[in-house]
């Protein structure tokens, strides 16, 4: 009896898994097709005459190098900022005692419940008033408020033996020396997980860079490729749209398949959304 249910369940989830992987495959397939092959019925499930023309169309856009540069600057700055902030504060909450510790900790955690969209307009106006509209810091500075990263770091660092810190202090190490020479080196798995989450999150971020940028000067890749050949409600050149999508997805997939373990441990430790 339960065997039958298991087999039925396995069939169901296998079909579902294939359906979930299908759109990703369809992106890469579509990016290799040109012209009207996208509109053939029955569809081609395998590229019969693959062509890199759509990629060439995007890469030959005068602004393509600029988009890549913008994405690199924004992603690296926001990753560096959020990871160091998360580790510093996570260490304080995990290993230090200080007045109001619980109050500050839970207040910081509560801010994770604030819907981002509530802060979208005021944040936009603040950046505009600070003269940061259409600049790199305008895009990456909000990643300072990384309560989720702090929680992940706290969970990890609180499992480390406190004797390490005590003995370093007895040897005369200062607070900063303890952090940089004792804590940071043994936190490599933590830092790795935080970097991956933050990197992927910032690389594919769309809404904030969209409202924060007005010109090619700061536009990121994810924003640029969607405006290239897609309009709300429709695609102009399917091949170009898919090649653009693929250019955003390839780096993400490389990171995902190389560091899958980190994603899993990150989610189970902190419940962070990837």
């Amino acid at each position, binding site marked *: 009896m339960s065997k039958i249910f298991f087999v039925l369940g396995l069939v169901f989830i296998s079909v579902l898994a294939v359906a979930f992987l299908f759109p990703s495959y369809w992106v890469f397939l579509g990016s290799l097709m040109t012209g009207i092959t996208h509109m053939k019925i029955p569809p081609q499930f395998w590229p019969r005459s693959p062509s890199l023309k759509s990629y060439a169309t995007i890469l030959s856009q005068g602004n393509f190098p600029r988009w890549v540069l913008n994405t690199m600057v924004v992603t690296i700055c926001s990753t560096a900022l959020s990871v160091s902030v998360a580790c510093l504060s996570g260490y304080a909450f995990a290993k230090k005692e200080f007045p109001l510790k619980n109050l500050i900790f839970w207040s910081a955690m509560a801010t994770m419940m*604030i819907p981002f969209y509530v802060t979208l307009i005021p944040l936009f106006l603040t950046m505009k008033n600070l003269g940061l509209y259409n600049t790199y810091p305008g895009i990456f500075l909000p990643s300072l408020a990384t309560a989720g990263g702090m929680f992940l770091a706290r969970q990890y660092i609180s499992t480390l033996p406190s004797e390490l810190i005590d003995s370093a202090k007895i040897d005369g190490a200062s607070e900063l020396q303890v952090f940089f020479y004792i804590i940071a080196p043994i936190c490599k798995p933590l830092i790795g997980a935080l970097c991956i989450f933050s990197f992927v999150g910032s690389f594919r971020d769309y809404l904030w860079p969209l409202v924060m940028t007005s010109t090619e000067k700061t536009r990121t890749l994810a924003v640029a490729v969607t405006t290239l050949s897609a309009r709300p409600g429709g695609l102009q050149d399917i091949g170009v749209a898919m090649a653009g999508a693929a250019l955003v997805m390839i780096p993400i997939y490389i990171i995902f*398949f190389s560091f899958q373990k980190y994603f899993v441990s990150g989610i189970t430790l902190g419940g962070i959304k990837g």
Partner: protein
Amino acid sequence: MKTNRENFLHLVWKARAAYFFLLPLLFGIVVFKLKPLVEGVRLSFFEANIKEQVFVGFGNYIKMWGDPLFWRAMGNTMFYVIVMVPLILLVPLLIALVSTKTSRTTQSFFRAAFYLPVVSAGIVMSMVWMWIFQSSYGVANYFLSLVGMDPVLWLATSSGSRLAVCIVQLTWSLGIPLILYLSALAAIPKVVYEAAAIDGAGPFSRFFKITLPLIMPTVVYLLIMETIGRFQTFSAILLMTAGGPAYSTTSIVHRLYQVGFVSYRFGEASAYGTLLLVITFIVAFFQFRYLNKKLEF
């Protein structure tokens, strides 16, 4: 009293290093979370554009209340919550229960398959879905025709596009619940099941009497987070349907975006934001309260 305060300040001074470590995070939270939050609520009482702000009291809320599009957005959002939350809670649980009975490799295949759409950028994925759901040459209708079903006008009709939004949103919503369920299931000690098997418990009573109560904290956590999250349904709408056709897929957040960043009526958009905040509070409050009571058997 005085000595108490001196004592407190002394403790603060002694722990100054800890505050120093916290400073960047607290600065970030205050400037980029709390200040915008307060500012957003304040703005909802003003008529505001990029240049000026005029106090209008509850004017924006009255305007919102009288706007038929607001009620469309509310209705659609409720639809998204009611359709998606049960699926996001149940389907990953089923996947987790079945895949834990398979080999480790199969299990990691399923985990990767359902997590891949989570890391793929939603906005980029919605481009491929526009192609898949194209009514004449999209592959979705081709598959339907293979099983003998009539083509669906996915993005051209209100019911079709609402369904499309749910499907697309679901593709990137199952991965995280799945990983959380898998780790919750892995934490249940095997001896519990062995004892139950000796007592002659069947698979169904094992599930309802042992598994479900033990993973209840995960279920509750997901219920709260997903209900709040689905009230914010947006990313599948922004590019794929743009709220259409004829506003049939627009949601609260999509209205917020349209009113704020297309029409530049920041005050009215902030009223939508404040409403979203209130909904979030109510959902969190009731679910924490009600479910906490139910959990203490």
